[in-house]
Every structure is written in C-alpha cells, then in structure tokens.
C-alpha cells in the first residue's frame, strides 16, 4: 500500500491557436478569493522561452500577442487522453520580453479580469442577481451584487461566465465533498490560513433596501425636464418724485411781551387756504401752485387775497411711494444630453418693468406731473406706470457633447429688454440729432440679444484648452441707446479668452446629470452569532467582539426575495468568517478527481490522520502552477464543518509488483510464467463514502411582546349628546276568549288551501258530511 502524489503532468500550450508547447516554461495563475467578492477574476502569467528552431517570441514592441488573444493550456493524462487545465482558457492582457534571458512574460487574465481592466460590464450586467441603479453600474458594484446574493461569477475553462451560489446549491445548504485530501498522503502541504487573530463573537449585519417603490435613480433619466420657480413678493420704492399735501404745523407763538417762544406744535384752526412760496428749482420740485383769478403765468401775486388760495397753511412735501411688486424666476433644465446630461438650461425672470430702467419711469411720471400737476393736486393724478410684470431677462445655455459624451461647448445667450439699455436721450424731449422731439414713450416688452458667450473645450497636445468668446451689444457696453442701428450682441463687441492648462484638473465641472441620484434607501440590521462564549468577562473589554458588516448593495428586490437574500447573506458571512479563521492552505497535485468538473468553490474533505480530524472544506482562491516538471495547485480552503468518518486511502501506485525474491535480472513478458505478483487493479482515488458533516447553528430569538391600548369614541368630535333617560313603559295584560271553527252545513263544499291541496283537517274531502253544525247565529244577540 502507499500513495504517491504524482505531480508530473505533460502540458500542451496554444496561444491564438498556435502550439507553443515547445517554448513553454511556466504557467502561474491565481483565482481571487470569494471572501466578500462576487466576481472571481483569474490572472497570472505565462513564461515562454526561446528554443532553437521554434516560433519567434522576442517582442520588444510588446505586441506579439494582442490583448484578448486566447491562451489554452491542456494537460495529458498518463493514458494519453487530454483534458483542459481548470484555468486553461485565459486571455492575453499584456506581454513583456526580457532579452537577457530571452523569455517572454505574458500577463494572462480571464474575461472578468479583462472587464476589471476595461470596466466594461456589458456582459456581466445581465447576469447580476440584484439589479443596480444606473449610477451604480460599475464593475465593483457588479461584484457586490453577486456577493450580496451569496453568489460568485467566474469564467470556466471553456471561456463561459458561470454563476453559482458560494455555499451549497442554494446558498444555505452544506456543500457536498468532491474529493478527499489526506495529510501525509495526498496533501503536499497544509498550513493554517490565518494567524491567531481574535475570533469575532457576533457580526452585526446591516442591509439597505429602497424606500417605497424605489424612487429615482432606478431608471435612465434622459429626457427629464426640471423646472424651478421662485416667486418673490416685496415692496419697491417708486423711482419718481411724488408729493403729498400736508397741513402745516405751528410750533411758535408770541408771548405777551411780543417775544417769540416755542410751543408744542399744533395744527392751526381753522385752516385758511393760503399758498406758500413757489419753489425755485425745476428738477425734482413740486409743480407750481395754481393760478388765481386774473393771474397769468405761475407767478404768485401778493395782490391776490390769501383766501382765494387753495390751501392756506398746507404745504406740499415729497413722499416716497412704496409699491407692491412680484418677481418670478423660472429655471428650466432639460436633460436630453448623452447619459442624461444637461442639454439646455433657461433662466427667465419676470418682474415689474420699472426695475429695468427706473430713470425712464421717473421721467414718465415727472412729465405727466409737469403737465397735470397743480399746487393743490401736486401729483396731477398721474398713474404709476411700469408696475406691470414683464419678462426682464432671459438667459439660455445650450450644451454640446462629443462622441465620448464629453462636453464640447456651451453657448449662452442673454436677452434683455430694449428699455433696459435705453438712455435718457432716447425718451426725453428736446433736440435729438438736430430733430425736435416730444417725450417719447418706449415699449417695455421688446427684447433683444444683449450677450452671447460661447465656450469650447478641447484637448490638444496634452493640454486642456478652453476658449471663451463673448459678444456684447454696443447698447450695453457703450450705452449708445437703442436708436443706433442694430444692437444685437452679434453686431457688438467681441472678446476672446483662451485658457490653456496642462494640469489634469478639469477646466470646468461636468454638467449635472439626474442619473447620479441613487435609490433612496432605508437600513436595517440583524445579528449573526459566530462563536458564542469565546471570551470570559471580566475584564468587560474582553467581549463581545462585534464586527460590523453590511450587504454591499441596496436590495432592490421584493419583500420576500429580500428576506431570502438576507438569510443567505447571514449564512454566507458567517461561513466566510468562521471558514477563514479555521481555514487551511492546502497544496495538492492535479489529481483527476480534482481537476475534472472543477469549480472555484469545490468542496472536499481534509483528513488529518495523526489527529484523526476530518473536516469539510471548500476551495477558495487557488493558485495554479505548471512548469515543465510538475503541475500543482494551492488552495486557501475555507472550513465549512467538522465531519465524522474515516476516509479510505487506496494505493495509487502502479507497477509495484512483488518481487519473487529469487530472480536475478529477469524480464518477463506480460503474464509470463513465474512472474512476480502484479499490483492488482486501480483502486481509484481516496474516498470517504461514510463521512458526514453537520453544522452548529446559533440563533438570536427575539421575543417581542406588545401591549396595545386604544381609546375609541363613537361621537362626532368626541362630543356625544346626552342620551335620553331610560324609558319604563307600563305593560298591561288582559285576557280574552275566542273560538275557531267553521260555520258550515252538512254537504257544503269547503275551500282548498292556497296551493289547491286538501287540508288534512278535512279528512280527505272537501264536502262536509256529518258536520256538527254550530248555530250560525252563535254570536247574535238573540
């Protein structure tokens, strides 16, 4: 008996379909651990050596094999049959030629490794078990989606992406062993996976799931339109000079000695209308007092009796006029760009016309007052024009994107009213360009393009170039007024600014996209007990040692599915933690039962013969090495469960015939006479048919008791009308006597019942015979 770990395995190597076996030096690839990883990329390297007369491998330009070229590695069984190495279908990622030792180092990776490189998740996204928000569709989140559902995705040795639960067939059950590793027999080495790290007692597992039906972010928001309206209500001071009539106050008096003294101000009684002095200035001054009888012009005359003035002891005083105003700002954003980026924004402001040119409205008012104002009615009944709401400013920005969704240019156009740039000579009377002109009323709602700003973004020669071209209307810049021909911005002043930057700091922020908001989620947590009683207290600091974990992606699934995912993830994280702590790093030769039908999470029994310890393990993060001499693998096996049973270790030796003890240099043919006893038939690999595994379960049971009290009131608004008093009716009883009978004569025919039947009482006949005839006049008074 005996077991020989035979690691010699001849290999066949092809790259891009060409046989490179004769140049093969070594092949080393590793799988990623499934510890909280959903995607398990495999990557490593292949070394080719130059051999005389073989294919050329030197490649200084590093392009001998293009990225994505398929590399296959097949192995030969002793009987000559060929099988694919478990990791024998990979792709070239890069090549590097070492001229000193004439070797070509080829970095290899599976499709998932390539996806990590290019961040192209188009092939993986349809496979993720928990859907991802649009903004979360990255390779890392794809991995998180698989791990959240306790699943793994790997590429098999035929190039297919395969997903499966990490533990068991459903993520919860115990996996079944597919091969047996025996320390001292088949295992080349076995070392603990971790040092003496502290054992967590409890894992606090939190998870999140969407509020309500999922909210924003679940769908592509391209085409969305946002609108923001801001309405302000406020008071503004009307720009014109307005006036009020006010009664004068007398604050001095003359005492008996004729001396003037201050007194408390009083209003004189009765008011005798009398004009006051005419103001002397012309601008911003009250209008002249009204003319009196016989008076011409505006000069007051002392000859006119005071009594004829409109208001004696009244004066005209300036009074600011406060007017209510509304302002509405509408900001409208359209997300019609690629990836729902902003395509246009438009900001429009509506407000009182007086705000765009207060001087104009002050003059309109003053002009009116000068025409209609009189001393006693200083405002002349003029209206406060310009308080109507007009479109004051409109600014639109258009975004243009390139083929890579990058921002190429923005164009901002600003429109304002002509009134806003009108100058006093546009409306005031006088000589304008030699032409006499009356007061000219302007339209408040005529708009023109006052400014255009075009910004372009480019990259040239490793520098970022931002060019800003601005056109501004001459009416804005030079205050030329509105009658100077075309005042459109494109006919105005042009300014170009160029900004060049070689830093990698983006010149401008990327425009908003509504795709970035992700699903609003709420969070819950649960506890997973790992190793109860793994500490003593005091000291109180000894425990419990709680590790916080969370399911990495929001669970955008139904309520029922969520419960399944959470319970699976509890088992997943528990097995990973426990399994990692009790894990072993085991090296084995590439025995047929291991490599045939291999999966990254293949389970196996590990048996320590010396300590008679049998445990169920699961392969994780294997490293595969193939050289000219040997083919081995090392797996970081995670512990699953302690098991019972005794594996059988059959001898795998061949050719070990028993010597006859008397032969000297004898060579026999097959089945020759007197030959040594042959080794017998192949007994097969080590097995453990009677081995079984169990699991320990630790559960936290919440016993929740709820006390419910409620107060009910059946009346309207808690107020009940008083109930009527109890009624006690008097019930009186009396007796009466009555008889029931037919008053018939012998031979009379009786009536049938309502259905035509014969009533039983009639004894089967409707004809009365031998009736006891009661006196028909029984109740007569006679």
């Amino acid at each position, binding site marked *: 008996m*005996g*077991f*020989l*770990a*035979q690691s*010699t*395995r*001849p290999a066949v190597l092809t790259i891009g379909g060409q046989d490179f076996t004769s140049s093969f030096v070594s092949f080393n690839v590793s799988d990623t651990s499934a510890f909280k990883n959903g995607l398990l990329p495999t990557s490593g390297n292949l070394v080719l050596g130059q051999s005389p007369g073989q294919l050329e491998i030197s490649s200084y330009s590093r392009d001998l094999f293009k990225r994505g070229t398929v590399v296959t590695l097949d192995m*030969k*069984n*002793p009987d*000559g049959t060929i099988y694919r190495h478990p990791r024998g279908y990979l792709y070239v990622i890069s090549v590097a030629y070492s001229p000193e030792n004439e070797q070509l180092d080829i970095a290899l990776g599976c499709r998932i490794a390539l996806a990590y490189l290019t961040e192209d998740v188009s092939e993986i996204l349809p496979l993720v078990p928990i859907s991802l928000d649009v903004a979360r569709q990255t390779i890392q989140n794809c991995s998180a989606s698989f791990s959240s559902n306790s699943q793994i995705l790997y590429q098999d040795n035929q190039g297919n992406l395969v997903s499966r639960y990490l533990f068991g067939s459903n993520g919860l059950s115990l996996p079944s062993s597919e091969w047996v590793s025996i*320390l*001292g027999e088949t295992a080349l080495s076995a070392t603990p996976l971790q040092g003496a790290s502290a054992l967590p007692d409890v894992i606090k597992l939190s998870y999140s799931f969407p509020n309500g039906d999922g909210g924003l972010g679940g769908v592509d928001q391209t085409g969305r339109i946002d609108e923001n309206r801001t309405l302000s209500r406020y008071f503004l001071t009307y720009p014109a000079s307005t006036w009020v009539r006010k009664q004068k106050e007398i604050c001095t008096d003359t005492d008996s000695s004729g001396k003037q003294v201050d007194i408390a101000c009083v209003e004189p009684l009765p008011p005798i209308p009398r004009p006051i002095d005419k103001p002397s200035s012309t601008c911003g001054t009250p209008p002249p007092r009204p003319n009196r009888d016989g008076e011409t012009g505006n000069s007051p005359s002392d000859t006119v009796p005071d009594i004829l003035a409109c208001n004696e002891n009244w004066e005209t005083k300036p009074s600011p006029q406060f007017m209510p105003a509304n302002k509405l700002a509408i900001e409208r954003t359209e997300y019609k760009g690629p990836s729902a980026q902003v395509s246009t924004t438009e900001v429009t402001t509506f407000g009182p016309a007086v705000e765009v040119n207060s001087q104009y409205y002050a003059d309109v008012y003053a002009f009116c007052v000068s025409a209609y104002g009189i001393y006693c009615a200083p405002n002349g009944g003029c209206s406060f024009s310009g308080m109507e709401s007009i479109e004051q400013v409109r600014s639109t920005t258009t975004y243009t994107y390139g083929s890579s969704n990058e921002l190429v240019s923005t164009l901002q156009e600003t429109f304002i009213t002509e009134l806003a740039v009108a100058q006093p000579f546009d409306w005031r009377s006088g000589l304008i360009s030699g032409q006499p002109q009356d007061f000219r009323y302007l339209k408040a709602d005529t708009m023109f393009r006052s400014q255009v700003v075009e910004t372009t973004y480019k990259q040239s020669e490793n520098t970022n170039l931002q060019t800003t071209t601005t056109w501004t209307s001459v009416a804005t810049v030079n205050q030329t007024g509105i009658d100077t021909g075309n005042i459109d911005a494109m006919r105005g002043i042009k300014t170009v600014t160029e900004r060049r930057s070689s830093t990698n700091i983006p010149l401008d922020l990327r425009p908003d996209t509504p795709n970035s908001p992700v699903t609003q989620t709420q969070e819950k947590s649960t506890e997973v007990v790992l190793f109860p009683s793994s500490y003593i207290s005091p000291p109180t600091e000894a425990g419990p040692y709680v590790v916080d974990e969370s399911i990495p992606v929001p669970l955008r699934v139904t309520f029922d599915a969520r419960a399944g995912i959470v319970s699976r993830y509890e088992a997943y994280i528990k097995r990973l933690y426990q399994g990692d702590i009790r894990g072993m790093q085991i090296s084995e030769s590439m025995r047929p039962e291991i490599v045939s039908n291999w999966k990254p999470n293949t389970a196996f029994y590990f048996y320590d*013969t*010396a300590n008679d310890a049998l445990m169920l393990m699961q392969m994780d993060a294997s490293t595969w090495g193939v050289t000219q001499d040997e083919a081995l693998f090392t797996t970081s096996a995670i512990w699953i469960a302690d098991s019972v049973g005794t594996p059988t270790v059959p*001898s*795998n*030796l*061949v*050719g*070990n*015939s*028993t*010597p*006859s*003890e*008397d*032969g*000297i*240099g*004898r*060579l*026999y*043919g*097959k089945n*020759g006479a007197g*030959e*040594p006893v*042959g*080794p017998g038939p192949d007994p097969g690999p080590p097995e453990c048919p009677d081995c079984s595994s169990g699991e320990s379960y630790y559960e936290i049971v919440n016993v929740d008791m709820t006390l419910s009290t409620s107060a009910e009131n059946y009346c309207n608004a808690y107020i009940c009308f008083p109930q009527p008093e109890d009624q006690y009716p008097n019930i009186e009883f009396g007796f009466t006597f009555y008889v029931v009978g037919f008053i018939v004569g012998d031979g009379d025919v009786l009536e049938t019942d309502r259905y035509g039947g014969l009533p039983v009482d009639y004894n089967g006949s409707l004809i009365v015979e031998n009736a006891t005839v009661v006196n028909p006049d029984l109740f007569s008074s006679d």
Partner: protein
Amino acid sequence: MLTVSISYTSQITPENVYDFTIDNFGDNAMPRSYVGEGDFTFSANGTSIISGPAYRRKYQWVISTMMIKADAVIFDKMFRDWDEDRSAGYAAACGIIDQTWGDPVSTNVIFLTPPVYTRLSPVDVSVNFGLQEV
C-alpha cells in the same frame, strides 16, 4: 543470505515485468537507512521536546552492487520503463523486499537516484542507485 529483491511492471504497452534479487553489495554498510534526522530541543523548564514529521520515517536504500552485463542491461531497461511511466504521470513505484537484516521489509519504492553504471570488466558492471520508500 542477505538479499534485496526489486520488481517493476511497466505500464506502457507492451507491459514488461522485471524482477531482481540483489545479494552482493559494494561494502559492509547496510543498504537500508532512514530519511531525515530527529529534531530535539528542551523547553524553558527543561522538558525534552521532540518534533519531526507526523509520520514514521521512511526508508531509503543506497545500493551498490555488481551485476553481469546482461543483467545490468535489463536493470537499466527497468529503470527506463519506470521513468517513462513516471513522466507520463503514473504514480509508478517498484515493489521491494529487503531481507538484509532484521525482519523482512516489503514496501514500494521509487528511484531517488538513477542508476550509475561502472564497467568493471567485460562481463561485470557495477550498478549504483538510490531508492526511496513512498
């Protein structure tokens, strides 16, 4: 008589069965010995601590013998058949029965050191090789 008998049945068609019994050795040293050395230390309080592999020490044989040339040729063919099987991936091992001293030892061995042949005379060849218990 002190003998070491070795047999091998090749796996590659046609199967050949080899059978040798060696009864002469190049010196007085016993051909059978053990692999490795004991590892022994003392603990802090003087307790003796022995460590080593968790299995019984395996045997190894270093054999130097003289064969007639015809036998040596067959021996060499046995080695080549064994090595070919090994290189094909078989867990190829030879059967051995050692009756040099003590109780007979019957086990399986592989060639740890390929045979080295030295011509002694036109008919005699010295054959030196090492075997390792599996």
